């Protein structure tokens, strides 16, 4: 996060439209020069919230405060929108050349021709599309089109940049290259950005803070590592990649740690939970180590369990290994490790994870 000065504040926002999840945001602050990622599954209401924030749709209730001043939907609409730029999932280019597309926002603002040319050329260079300036937009590839769309948004030098899943329709190489360029441009500018995405790696890479949105509400907001490592509830934990979530009963305490039981298996975790309390233990798959022999003596991990491989699935650079250790447990291992461990369904194996690697969610009430 680059600043603690609020640039945008939302209070008591409610919005409902047909066939869309109702939006209910009691309070949200976006700080100047930060990148806030809005993550959540499809249908969580991210796009709707972005449209409300951009004043493209009128909320039924609530206030949007920009730079300390409440925005009146009828009176300040265009003036407010001219402080923003929004990039949609689809590039939505106009049927004209790349240059004219990038210039469009500046033309709406009535800038002089010379100034437009300067700003457009600068943006075309920044996004590596200067050579395409005279090309009709309809002849661009998906990556080039989205690059043009981003250049068009940056050309108006927005105070806030709203990015609604801008990479989701791109192939992996175009996506990677565009994320790199966007990262450099956002970090190198004074722009505040709100990025809506369902891809948590994208969010982790680009954002200072993450807001997890589900069913039209923000379930958790905070620094990226806090969201990833300390989700507030089962739903958030599941969305941010926690594969193993166990509802356990605490048996005993020992200093700063406690032992909890799940179907008779005892798991040691760090936290303040009290005996008799029911807690959720969240174990990220990256934290689980697999080995073929009993390594209890040679590992610092407090939790070591024998298990049987129940499922094995490739997952990009990793293999996802599902185990039955008397409780379900998921681990990620590299393809190389999977080969070394001779992993296959039904194989007996040892799984270990540290007590400190477990995130504990204490159930309220």
């Amino acid at each position, binding site marked *: 996060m680059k600043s603690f000065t609020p640039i945008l504040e939302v209070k008591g926002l409610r919005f409902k439209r047909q066939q869309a999840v109702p939006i209910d945001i009691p309070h949200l602050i976006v700080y100047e020069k930060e990148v806030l990622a809005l993550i959540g599954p499809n249908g969580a209401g991210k796009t709707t919230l972005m449209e409300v924030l951009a004043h*493209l749709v009128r909320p039924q209730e609530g206030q949007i405060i920009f730079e300390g001043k409440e925005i009146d939907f009828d009176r300040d609409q*265009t003036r407010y929108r001219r402080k*923003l730029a929004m990039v*949609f999932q*689809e590039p939505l280019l106009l049927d004209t050349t790349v240059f004219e597309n990038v210039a*469009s926002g500046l033309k709406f603002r009535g800038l002089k021709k010379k100034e437009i040319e300067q700003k457009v050329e600068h943006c075309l260079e920044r996004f590596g599309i200067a050579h395409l300036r005279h090309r009709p937009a*309809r002849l661009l590839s998906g990556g080039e089109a989205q690059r043009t769309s981003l250049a068009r948004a940056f050309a*108006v030098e927005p105070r806030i940049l709203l990015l609604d899943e801008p990479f989701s329709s791109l192939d992996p190489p175009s996506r990677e290259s565009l994320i790199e360029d966007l990262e450099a441009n956002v970090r190198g500018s004074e722009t505040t950005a709100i990025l809506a995405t369902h891809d948590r790696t994208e969010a982790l890479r680009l954002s200072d803070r993450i807001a997890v949105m589900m069913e039209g509400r923000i379930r958790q907001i905070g620094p990226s590592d806090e969201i990833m490592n300390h989700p507030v509830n089962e739903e958030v934990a599941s969305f941010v990649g926690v594969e193993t979530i166990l509802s356990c009963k605490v048996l005993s305490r020992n200093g700063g740690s406690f032992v909890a039981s799940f179907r008779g298996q005892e798991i040691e975790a760090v936290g303040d939970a009290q005996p008799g309390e029911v807690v959720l233990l969240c174990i990220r798959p990256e934290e689980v180590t697999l080995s073929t022999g009993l390594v209890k003596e040679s590992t610092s991990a407090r939790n070591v369990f024998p298990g049987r491989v129940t499922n094995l699935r490739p997952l990009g650079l990793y293999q996802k290994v599902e185990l039955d250790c008397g409780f379900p447990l998921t681990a990620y291992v590299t393809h190389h490790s999977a080969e070394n461990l001779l992993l296959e369904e039904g194989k007996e194996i040892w799984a270990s994870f540290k007590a400190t690697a477990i995130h504990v969610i204490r159930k309220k009430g």
Partner: protein
Amino acid sequence: MDLILEGVKKAFWLLITFDPEVMGVTLLSLQVSGAATGISLFIGIFTGTLLALSEFRGKRFVVSLVNTGMGLPPVVVGLFVTIFLWRNGPLGFLGILYTPTAMVIAQAIIAVPIVTGISLAAIQQLPAKLRLQILALGATRRQMVWMLIKEARLPLLAAVMAGFGGVISEVGASIMVGGNIKGYSRVLTTATVMETSRGNFDVAIALGVILLFLAYLVNLLLTHIQQRRRPR
């Protein structure tokens, strides 16, 4: 067959000799239908765009009315325009019945629903989020509407073609409100009807060929503009 060949020859002759009467009738046809098309484009594109962009109760009913209007029978239009412009009619004080102005009004009424219907479809076929994207780029509502019309310019050319095609070829309304007065309100279609009723098939065919040629020429030009740009 000879009759048709004679007609074609006659048409060719009338054209290359710039026959003053035929030229006058042709020019008036172009003027009346051109003006009617222009008016219908102005009203139709505006109404079609407005309909496409607005949401209100009963929109489907209004759209179905527009679509029905696309097949408005010219004689019915002619009848109502005549009644309105009749000496004792509500607009009789204007004194424009049996004038080219009355013909322009009648033809415009025929073309407006055609242009409105096609404009509505043209704007609706644009990506739904394009309107939001244009607004998000800082456009005012007026700038946004203008951009959408520009984006839909290729299908909108179809509206021009259909509108012009609809009015240059109609005869019922023109004859009823124009009166087919020689040298004043006689156009290609009304002249063709008259020559046919007199048995002057060669002249009627000649006029028909000129009418076809004119319609073809205008549509050729518009098609050229439309096809110069490959649709997305």
